[in-house]
């Protein structure tokens, strides 16, 4: 597809640039807002150039937060989010890789049924089963706890399915060679399957970490104690103050901070992530 048509090149670049602007501009706006003092928003026109209060705003949000809005310091909420996102990502990967291993490599009664049961839960994401799940979590006394935040979100049909598809592409001879070499099921899993799944695990980790990080509805339901607030739901609380205008500069500082970890995860795992999506190492 080596073509040289200046107009087409121009057009495609325009489309891409417009797309980038649409995505980046709000982020830019949020960042600029987080560098201003609280008075700069009264005019109703958001400023477009950086202001002088960058360090003040971030320092205030990280350390004390907005007590008037009933929200703890941002660092605490970020820690909660981090714990929740990590538990969800690691838990999902651990459980789904083991269940996929069982489904692909072992013959046991009702194997197909087990697979379809897992597959069917794809139709039942948290939001659909939120009331019964809440009831179960409440009855188990897991409200206001990290366990309550993370465990109900761990079961994952998607990840199981992905690992299953990957395992199916691993040649059977590899398993047979390992058997001849004296590797039992656990050794085969640990020495061969796990290293081969490395890039898939990395890609899934990125996706699942972000999935855990952006959870909003579930933390909103199961936490009433500010000690367990997560950052994404906390932002909503910061913005929804009664009887006064939201302190946009501080809210935006929290927004920018909330954006950082997913960005960092993507940046640091990008190489593995892309590898995991485009190639399988065989």
């Amino acid at each position: 597809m080596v073509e040289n048509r200046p107009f087409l090149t121009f057009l495609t670049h325009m489309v891409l640039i417009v797309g980038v602007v649409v995505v980046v501009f709000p982020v830019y706006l949020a960042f600029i807002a987080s560098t201003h003092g609280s008075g700069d928003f009264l005019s109703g026109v958001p400023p477009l150039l950086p202001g002088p209060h960058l360090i003040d705003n971030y320092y205030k949000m990280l350390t004390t937060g907005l007590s008037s809005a009933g929200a703890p310091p941002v660092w605490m909420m970020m820690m909660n989010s981090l714990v929740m996102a990590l538990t969800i990502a690691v838990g999902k990967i651990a459980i789904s890789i083991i269940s996929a291993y069982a489904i692909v490599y072992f013959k046991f009664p009702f194997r197909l049924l087990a697979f379809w049961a897992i597959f069917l839960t794809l139709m039942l994401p948290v939001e659909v089963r939120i009331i019964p799940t809440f009831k179960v979590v409440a009855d188990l006394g897991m409200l206001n706890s990290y366990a309550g935040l993370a465990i109900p979100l761990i079961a994952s049909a998607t990840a199981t399915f992905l690992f299953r598809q990957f395992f199916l592409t691993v040649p059977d001879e590899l398993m047979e060679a390992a058997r001849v070499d004296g590797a039992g099921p656990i050794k085969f899993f640990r020495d061969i399957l796990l290293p081969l799944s490395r890039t898939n695990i990395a890609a899934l980790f990125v996706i699942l970490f972000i999935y855990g990080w952006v959870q909003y509805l579930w933390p909103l339901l199961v936490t009433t104690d500010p000690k367990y607030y997560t950052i994404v739901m906390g932002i909503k609380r910061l913005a929804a103050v009664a009887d006064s205008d939201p302190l946009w500069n501080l809210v935006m500082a929290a927004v920018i901070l909330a954006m950082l970890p997913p960005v960092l995860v993507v940046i640091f795992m990008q190489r593995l992530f892309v590898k995991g999506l485009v190639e399988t190492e065989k």
Partner: protein
Amino acid sequence: MATLDLKGVKKTYPGGVAAVHGVDLEIADGELVVLVGPSGCGKSTLLRMIAGLESITEGTISIAGDVVNRKEPAERDIAMVFQNYALYPHMSVRGNLEYGLKNRGTPREDIDQRVAEAARILEITPFLDRKPRQLSGGQRQRVAMGRAIVRKPKAFLFDEPLSNLDAKLRGQMRIEIRRLQRTLGTTSVYVTHDQLEAMTLADRLVVMNAGRIEQVGKPIELYDRPASLFVAGFIGSPPMNLFEIDKLRSLPGAEALQTLPAGTGIVGVRPDTVALSQANGPSIKLTGTIELIEPVGGESHLYVRCEGINQIVTIVAQGRTGLTETSMLDFWLPQAGFHPFNIETGKRLA
């Protein structure tokens, strides 16, 4: 090093499909036995049963006198070389060679010494720290063999190990496998569908068809005296010409048929025993049109359509023949080259 004993070995898959219908075979210590047959004849299944990768429905398999039916592959002390090599992609060549030894708790210095020795024999020492994907097909094949020989197993099992290589490399590796097996003196079972590979490698050749052994013997015995029509058609390239005896009776020289045993329905003649000039001794004369000439180099394969018997006859002619396609050709089937078969049983007579 060990003997291998198969007694009444049968394999029936859960769906009721029978892949192997009772195979008896004794393999002597240090012997290289080649299982050959068309796809689906059960040769791979049989090999995998010896390896322990398939369960045995009936019968017993013994290695060095021990019945191994219920043993895991690793406990049988065999090594297998797979068609697609089955190297662990994330491990270096060294890691691949070491893995089996590590799993059975071989001491470190012993591992290092064995790996070094295997690498030296197979000339893969320079690649020990590379990953399999950085190697060529032939090098991977060597690593796969290395993985087998470091273990010093009782038997090698080869499952079509050369079919992923190009023709030239296949020839080379074939020679190397033969040399290696002779040097190490390890009992080996080798599965292939390539009859040339089978003929050249085997101490003894086992021709299989539809889950049964058709014939066992030295390669040249099978070539000279095929026990059935199937073996006659499978061993030798191009395959043997088969004639219905009744069609030959009216031809000049048909009295050559009189010495054939009673009940002969089909007469086989190898393409290389067909004579282009009247030979000594009784022979049947045929005439036909040359449809196609395949010059192979030192010899040519002629495909001659004989109107009289309504059949195409294959002839291997040595040297340059000077013949051209569409020209007429007289040729003779010498009595000495006749292979008599019964038409119903497909078995050889006498």
